[in-house]
Each structure stands twice: as structure tokens, then as C-alpha cells.
């Protein structure tokens, strides 16, 4: 099983280098994975930041250190919640549609039709999604972080009365390039994981033993979302622990 995933991953990456006319396909996927997810990412990012601001304030007020709210919100978002929540949201929105689309193409002979036209399915369907995810995930994570910090500002500064200068000053003094790099590395790892799981589940939907035809696609989609979300959290722990050393 793991070997199959590994081979699928290697084949997908290999096709990123050998597939002709990959640019236009990748741009189309960036639109599907990235541009169409902007609104939901901004919405969730805003409320996550607002909740963090609210919860953070009432924890910090007990220690008389509400001035650290900006640092708490920004570090939590940039190092942890930004990449993880963005990845989980994109798995639900873009990953599920990836699996369903590729799965339907598989069970309706569309991938076979590509193969006999000498258009490898891995190059036409999987490689552009790998590239698009690796580009879109960090960008969306960045948007999530920024809007989350604004959300924290809305509750911390506008609602609860913390000084604006203190809020942003603490962000500036505590957030380092290492934190941002950690967030970017995580988002790239999550992008590869999500795309690998979702594409592979759809691509092999016809081989499932728990259903045939549309049921197989439905089961593949469910599996893809569940496995991706679990693996994102597992990978989060692994990357975090290796970065904190």
C-alpha cells in the first residue's frame, strides 16, 4: 500500500518534468484549487483570528500580559493554524473535487481514452495538480495568516481595547523568518500529501473493493478527505518536531 503511494508520487513528480504544455494545465488547476478557494479561506481565517484574539485576551489578562496578544495570535497562525486549517479546508473543497473528477473520468473510460491518445493520465491530470497545489497552498496560507492577524486585531484592538501599536509591535518583534519558513514548509508538505492522496484515490477508484461505479467514486472521495485530514495532522506533528529541534 505504502509502496503504491510512493510509486504514484514518484510518477506524478516525474511527469511534472516530462509533460508537454504543462503551463496552461497548471494555471487552470491553480484557478480551481487556489482562486476558487480564496473566499472560504479568508472567511475561515478571519473568524479563526477573531476567536484567537478573544480567547488569547482572556487567558493573557489573567497574567496581566495582554500586550502579548499580537505575538500569540501571529505565532499561532503562522506556525500552526494557518497551514493546518488551510490544508484541511482545501482538502474539503479542492481535494474532494479532485478525487471525484478523476474518479468519474476513470469509471467512464475517459482516462483510458487519454491513454490510447498517447496522453498519459499522470501527466494530464496528476502533474498539473501537484504543481498547482504547491503554488496555491503557500499563497492561501499566507492569506489565511494575514486575515487571521486582522481578525485578532478586530477583537483585541477594536473590541477589547488593546493598543494598536502594542499589538503590531509585538507581532513585529516576535515573528521571525524561521516561523514564516516553518509555515511555508508545512504548507508545501500538506499540498503534496493532499494532492497525492486525493489524486491517487480518484485514479484508482475502479480498483476499490467496497463499491462499483458511482459508489466507488463516492467512497474514494470520502476516503481521500479522511486520509488527507489525518495525514495532514500527522505530518504537522512530524514537521513541527523536526523544526523545533
Amino acid at each position, binding site marked *: 500500500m505504502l509502496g503504491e503511494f510512493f510509486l504514484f508520487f514518484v510518477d506524478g513528480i516525474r511527469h511534472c518534468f516530462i509533460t*508537454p*504544455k504543462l503551463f496552461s494545465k497548471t494555471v487552470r488547476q491553480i484557478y480551481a484549487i487556489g482562486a476558487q478557494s480564496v473566499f472560504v479561506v479568508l472567511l475561515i481565517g478571519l473568524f479563526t483570528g477573531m476567536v484567537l484574539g478573544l480567547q488569547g485576551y482572556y487567558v493573557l489578562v489573567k497574567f496581566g500580559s495582554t500586550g502579548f496578544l499580537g505575538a500569540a495570535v501571529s505565532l499561532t497562525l503562522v506556525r500552526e493554524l494557518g497551514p493546518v486549517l488551510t490544508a484541511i479546508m482545501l482538502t474539503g473543497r479542492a481535494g474532494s473535487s479532485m478525487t471525484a*473528477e478523476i474518479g*468519474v*473520468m476513470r469509471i*467512464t*473510460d*475517459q482516462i*483510458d*481514452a*487519454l*491513454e*490510447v*491518445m*498517447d*496522453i498519459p493520465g499522470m501527466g*494530464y491530470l496528476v502533474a498539473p495538480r501537484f504543481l498547482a497545489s504547491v503554488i496555491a497552498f503557500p499563497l492561501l496560507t499566507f492569506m489565511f495568516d494575514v486575515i487571521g492577524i486582522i481578525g485578532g486585531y478586530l477583537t483585541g484592538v477594536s473590541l477589547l481595547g488593546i493598543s494598536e501599536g502594542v499589538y503590531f509591535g509585538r507581532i513585529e518583534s516576535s515573528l521571525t523568518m524561521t516561523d514564516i519558513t516553518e509555515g511555508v514548509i508545512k504548507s508545501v508538505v500538506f499540498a503534496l500529501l493532499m494532492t497525492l492522496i486525493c489524486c491517487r484515490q480518484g485514479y484508482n477508484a475502479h480498483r476499490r473493493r467496497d463499491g462499483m461505479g458511482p459508489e466507488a467514486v463516492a467512497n474514494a472521495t470520502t476516503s481521500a478527505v479522511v486520509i488527507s485530514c489525518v495525514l495532514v495532522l500527522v505530518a504537522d506533528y512530524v514537521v513541527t518536531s523536526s523544526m523545533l529541534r
Partner: protein
Amino acid sequence: MTRQTDSFEVDGRGAWDIRLEHVRAGYTGRVVLDDISAVFPAGAITVVLGESGCGKSTLLRHIIGLARPMAGRILYGGQDFFSLPAAHFRRVRRRFGVLFQDGALLGSLTLAENVALPLSEHTGLSRSVVREAALRALSLVGLENFADYYPNELSGGMRKRGGLARAIATEPPILFCDEPTSGLDPINAAQMDQLLLDMKERYPTMTLVVVTHDLSSVRRIADHVVLIRDGRVGFAGTADELETSNDPYLRRFMDRLPDDGAGRLAAAPVNPEVRAALDDWLKR
């Protein structure tokens, strides 16, 4: 310029016959076809005939390289297809045009984009030239006015004709058609047959393999017939030989006579309990 590999010409448009030698085929542990040996002559229309579910489409999937036979060989121009190096295998497959049973058009592309796909992926032609070629192929199947429609906006027959347009867009030397007339009304079915004959007339060296159980198609287009029966070749010969055969099974098949199981309905009456439940359901 042509490339040679062990005196096997993989480029160009030369005619090849297709030879099956003791092919055993099926799916994970289930043998559907056993010991299939047949020749599909170059430049002829060969019809693969047989009852529904006898393995015709399975055979086609193996012939076009989508599945590997469990045993036996499939030869193109005398070369074992599945023994070729990967690059040559792909070059041989470039010579194929394939019409799948339901067209297998890509749902996210318009009809014109579908037909243009092999050209836009494999050539450096400009968009306008590729679109013009796609429209030409669509005009051959009478769908030029539906170029910008998506597959789910078309009828089953139109999707099938669109699939044929895509299959012929590269003017392939070998054309495979899986059930081209199934699900079509008699007029559209006759048009599809005529289209295949026109293709043959336009490209005389083209080898056509048509999988069907439509007898009127067989009578109209077949030069050569291979009939699959019980997972084996039940008949191989010309269409005239098939028509004049005295084999009882072939006669029954060609004359559309029911088999011995025709009285199954009388032999298996509905369970009274089921009948009562159905009556009760209808009264509700």
C-alpha cells in the same frame, strides 16, 4: 523519415495486420476469453461479433493495450505488441484511433476541444489551425454546429459521433470502434455505418476493427468477421461465409432465433408470496 526498430517500422502510415495468438484474457482471476487466435487483415473492416457479455469489449481493451493478456500474444505487423519497449509501444499506439462505447469524451472540455485534444497535445500547431482541424473532423460526423457544446449537453448518439470525430482527427491507420451503433436509432445507426464505409473509402489502407452485435451493421460494413462464442473464436471468415454457414448456432445468431432458454418465463413462475406483496403494494 521513418525509424526502424529491428526492421519494424513504427512510424508512418503503412498498413499492418493484427494477429492474435492463443490470447487468454480477463480480469483479476476471472478468465473471460480463452485461446483466442484470429487475424484482422490490414486494410479491411473486421467485425468482432458475439452475444452481449461474451467478452468483445474485453478483447478490444487488450488489443488496444489497455490491459495485458494473461497468456498469448497480440501482434501488429508481426511484432509482439506487449514485448515492445515502452517508447515503441507508445509509438505503435499513436497509430490507433479508438471510439469507446459511450464516446468517453472528456466532460470538462467542449466537443471541439475534445476532438482537438490529440492535435493540441502532440503538435505545435496554432490554436486556430487545431480548431479548424477539429471542426473539419466534426463536420465529417455532422456535428460542426455543436462544436462548443459540452458532452453532457449532447445526446448519446451525438456523443458517440463526437467520439468518432476525435478518433479520426489524427487520421489513424488503425481505427477501433466499440459498439458504434448500440443505442442509436435506425437512421443514426445507418449513418454511423455509412460514416465507417466513407472512412474506408477515403483511407483505403485503414484497418478497421468494429466490435458490435448489430447484425445489420455486420451485413453492411464487414469484410471479415470474427465471432466470439463461449470465450473462444466460434467463427472467422468473410461476411458471405457467415451468411451461408450451416452451423446451427451461427444460423440462430444470424436469423435472430431465441435459444433453448426462451421458455424460461413459463418455467420460473413468480413466487406467490412476492406476487401477493406486489399486489398489496399496488393497492396502497
